[in-house]
Every structure is written in structure tokens, then in C-alpha cells.
């Protein structure tokens, strides 16, 4: 029986289409964030940074990602509340809280890293590049998935796009699509 790494390699090889790979990476990031596809890409970036630096502190993450303190505190609380990270008081200074990814988040991130040559830096570049695509300052994983699907499908109907999108109420998907059209990221024909 092939070893785990062998299976992963086969899995990756079967997904050689660049767009398909990006879709899969987004799927794994959503899984790492508790299947919450409305998570901002910035949250995924914070999680990847913590995974890359086990036992890191909030201040260190803020410095590396240039994120303001209020946003950072909110996102760390979310990650902790959803079981994505554990927090431990420092042994030398109890005021310092150290964070490490855990459980399903760590496992799902490892799958995402398979597509990034096992490099957190590459995965961060991917997320950062995605963020810069949007005019919206807080793009979500749902936004990104819809863009990837639209790029892959070419001309597609609303139904075809939503079939590829993350599960959500129809109104949510419509609002997401309309937002992308407003930003000029997805073009549409006039309805006739």
C-alpha cells in the first residue's frame, strides 16, 4: 500500500490544472477555518502564519502581517473560539500568550500546503495575491472561489456558477456574485 506521502503525490498529480489546484487550496482553507466560507482571506492568512510559527504571539503575527491590533484580536478570538488554535501562557512571562494551530485546522492546512510545495511562504503569497485582486478590502474565501469558478468555466450561467460555489442561501450567492460584478471582476451580458 502506498504511504501517505505517495497518496498525496498521486492526488496532486491528478489535479494538474492550475485553476483546479487553486480551487482545491481554497477548499482546504475553508476546511481549516471550520467550513466557514464567509471567512475573510485575511483570517486565512493569520492562520497560515500561526501554523508557520508555532508558539508565536499575537504581537509577532501583527508585525509580520502588518495587521492592526483590533482586527488581530478579533480574528484571534474567532480562531480560538472555533478550535483552530490553542493559546498558552508563556512559561517565563505569563502575560505573553503563545498560539499554535491544532486539530482539524492543522490537518487541513497540511493538505493546502501540499499544493504549495509544502511552503507556508508560497501559501501566503497565494493568499496575498488573491487579496490584491479585489477592490473590496475584506474579500472572503467565498468571493475567491466564485472568481476561480468563473475563470475556469468561461461563459457560465448563474446556476452553473452557483453549482461550483460553497453552499449558502441563494441570496448570499447572488449578493456575492453581484459584488464581484460591481468590482469589475466578473463581466456579464445584458439579459434579453
Amino acid at each position, binding site marked *: *500500500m502506498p*504511504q*501517505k506521502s505517495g*497518496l*498525496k503525490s*498521486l*492526488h496532486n498529480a491528478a*489535479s*494538474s*490544472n*492550475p*485553476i*483546479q*489546484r*487553486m*480551487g*482545491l*487550496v481554497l*477548499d482546504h482553507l475553508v*476546511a481549516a477555518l471550520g467550513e466557514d466560507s464567509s471567512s475573510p482571506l485575511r483570517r486565512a492568512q493569520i492562520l497560515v502564519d500561526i501554523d508557520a510559527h508555532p508558539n508565536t504571539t499575537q504581537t509577532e503575527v501583527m508585525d509580520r502581517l502588518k495587521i492592526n491590533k483590533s482586527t488581530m484580536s478579533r480574528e484571534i478570538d474567532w480562531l480560538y473560539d472555533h478550535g483552530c488554535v490553542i493559546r498558552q501562557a508563556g512559561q517565563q512571562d505569563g502575560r505573553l500568550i503563545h498560539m499554535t494551530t491544532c486539530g482539524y485546522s492543522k490537518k487541513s492546512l497540511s*493538505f493546502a500546503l501540499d*499544493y*504549495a*510545495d509544502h*511552503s507556508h*511562504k*508560497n*501559501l501566503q*503569497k*497565494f493568499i*496575498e*495575491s*488573491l487579496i*490584491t*485582486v479585489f477592490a473590496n478590502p475584506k474579500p472572503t474565501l467565498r468571493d475567491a*472561489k466564485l*472568481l*476561480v*469558478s*468563473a*475563470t*475556469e*468555466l*468561461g*461563459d*457560465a*450561467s*448563474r446556476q452553473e456558477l452557483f453549482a*461550483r460555489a460553497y453552499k449558502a442561501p441563494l441570496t448570499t450567492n447572488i449578493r456575492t*456574485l453581484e459584488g464581484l*460584478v460591481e468590482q*469589475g*471582476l*466578473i*463581466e*456579464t*451580458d*445584458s*439579459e*434579453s
Partner: protein
Amino acid sequence: MVQKFRAAQTTIDGLETAFLGLTGYVMPDHDLTWSFNNDRSKGKSGTAPTPPVAPK
């Protein structure tokens, strides 16, 4: 007639850059040797298949 949607060129360019970042590829100037447009017919993104499970 059904309304059709497609990715804008800026989106395609942005996703190409994102993919290159994912692979760690450092793109030399003007080296756009491939395009997503050429790959559209090869597959579908869909939902991630079940990840492989290590044998116990």
C-alpha cells in the same frame, strides 16, 4: 436567453499571479508562457475530493 458571466481579464491576470505565488515560481519579465485560458477545457475545480487517509 440566459444571462452569462465570465471572469474579467484583470481577474484572470490576478489569478495567474496568485497561482505562480502558490508554486513559488519567480516569473522573469514578459514570461507568460501559459495561460488559464488554455487550460479551461481540461478539468473542473469543483469541491475538493476527500483527502487521502493514512493507513492505521
